[in-house]
């Protein structure tokens, strides 16, 4: 059985935040509440990144998801006044969707996760080493040498394209 120490305790706290927040997102009637739940869930994700010794990604998660995307979503909710006319939150096939989601989870858990990485599964479920790549190496991988320079540039191109596209789409043409 799991030893109860700071790491496992933190894991369970973050797991509750993550899954609870996600449930809140899909069930809340009020979209602002949904956005707050989304932030809670993403915060749990950032906690996982810290536990998994990827602090850079944890900070980026907070900065990009919580600081930018969540704010953007809240803005969109307010601009479209979409939290007022919410008589029906879900569509007619919501039970079908719930079935799909539950079946997918069941399939993933029973079919993949437990047989392969479960206790006594096919592959080891403890880290193979504690030699963790650092943030320095991440930066070097992105721009130094031949590793990921091209994908990095393509990603920045994608962001630029998305920015221009978003401005063009959302601009008020009448004004």
């Amino acid at each position, binding site marked *: 059985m799991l030893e109860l120490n700071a790491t496992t305790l933190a894991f369970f706290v973050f797991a509750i935040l993550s899954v609870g927040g996600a449930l809140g997102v899909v069930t809340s009637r009020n979209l602002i509440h949904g956005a707050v739940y989304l932030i809670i869930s993403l915060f749990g994700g950032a906690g996982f990144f810290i536990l998994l010794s990827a602090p850079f990604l944890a900070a980026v998660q907070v900065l990009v998801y919580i600081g930018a995307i969540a704010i953007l979503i809240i803005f969109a909710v*307010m601009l479209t006044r979409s939290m007022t006319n919410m008589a029906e939150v879900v569509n007619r096939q919501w039970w079908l969707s719930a079935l799909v989601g539950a079946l997918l989870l069941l399939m993933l858990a029973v079919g993949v996760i437990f047989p392969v990485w479960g206790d006594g599964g096919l592959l080891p479920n403890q880290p193979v080493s504690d030699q963790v790549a650092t943030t320095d190496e991440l930066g070097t991988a992105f721009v130094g040498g031949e590793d990921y320079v091209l994908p990095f540039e393509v990603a920045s191109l994608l962001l630029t394209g998305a920015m221009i596209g978003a401005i063009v789409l959302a601009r008020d043409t009448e004004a």
Partner: protein
Amino acid sequence: MEQACINPIDTLAACLISAGATAELASFVQILIGVVLISAFPLVLVILLIWVERKVAARVQDRLGPNRVGPFGLLQNVADAVKLILKEDITPAGADRLIYNAAPIIAVLSVLLIWAVVPFSPAHIGADLSIGLLYFVAISSIGTLAIMMAGWASNNKYALLGAFRVVAQLVSYEVPMVVALLIPVLLAGTLSMQSLVRAQIGMWFIVPCLVSAIIFYISNLAETGRAPFDLIEAESELVAGYNIEYSGMKFGLFMANEFMHAFTANLLFAVLFLGGWSGPGAEQYPLLGFVYLMLKTGVVYIFSLILRATVPRVRIDHMMAFNWKFLVPVSIINLLIAALLIQITRLLGIAPAPGETDFLAHVPQAFILLLGNLALIGGILQALRSSGRRDRLAEQARTHGDETAIIPVGSGD
């Protein structure tokens, strides 16, 4: 392994173990005390800060400022705080209770959490994260969220309008701030706050990164909602902005948050550009480093207070235009120039070795970078002058067009 218990300040854990505590409990108690100290310090400091601010503003405006309660009016803010606590705590009808109550807490958290990575002295820092600077940027973006939540949950249109403005302001000014911060990172080659300070022992970053220091200072003023960017609480237009419905201690939290944030921003300026704790003797006596840091911060803080008392508020569209059409392009050009010059100095071999603490070793690179910065400033001023002259002429032609225009309008018809 056995750590000696010399005195309970430096070796608390060892002392606790020798007094019979287990190792885990000892480290837990040590961490807990550290957390409480680091988070209590700014909260106590805030009372003093408000007094300083009121005194400075009063002197600038040829008044005396608070002088009745206690010596020099020092206890005035204690009295104010007591008044705030005693006030009735109102939640407006139609407010979203949970979000309304959570917002002030998140606002204060967003500032207090920054203090975890502030290096107070060579030996004292909450947590020297390898991503310290990024952590600061990430945490300060949470503050935006608190304001949004407060404005929306109050169920008041002025609060919502204020929140919209503030969020637009904060999100926009984050861009030049982050780009400006990249240059010290380039020079130091690290994101850890303690290493950033150590890299400045030879030469403060304000010399080689003059332009980015100025941009960081300006965008920090906007981030913290200080004059001349205090549209957050434009009393004359928005009643009070996002916190209009808050009363009692919840309002107190927002106010404390504002002052703490302003001080923290200046603290970070001192850490990132004025060498933090570095100074003669700081390595031997960590406490001296703390004194240096507070002195540097104090100078910057007083400067921002005088700025606040003298500069009028900027109009919202001017503020956004200033950011997107001026600060962002300048910061990006500055980054390009600095990166180029740093690379050139490294290729020429006149860049200081990493960890070099000698002043003279830093001079060549800093000099070249400073020249680049000064050239950039000169270029900006020149561009501003010519564009200002163009605007003035256009304005003149528009207002006096019919009387004094040399070329009659519409003569081509």
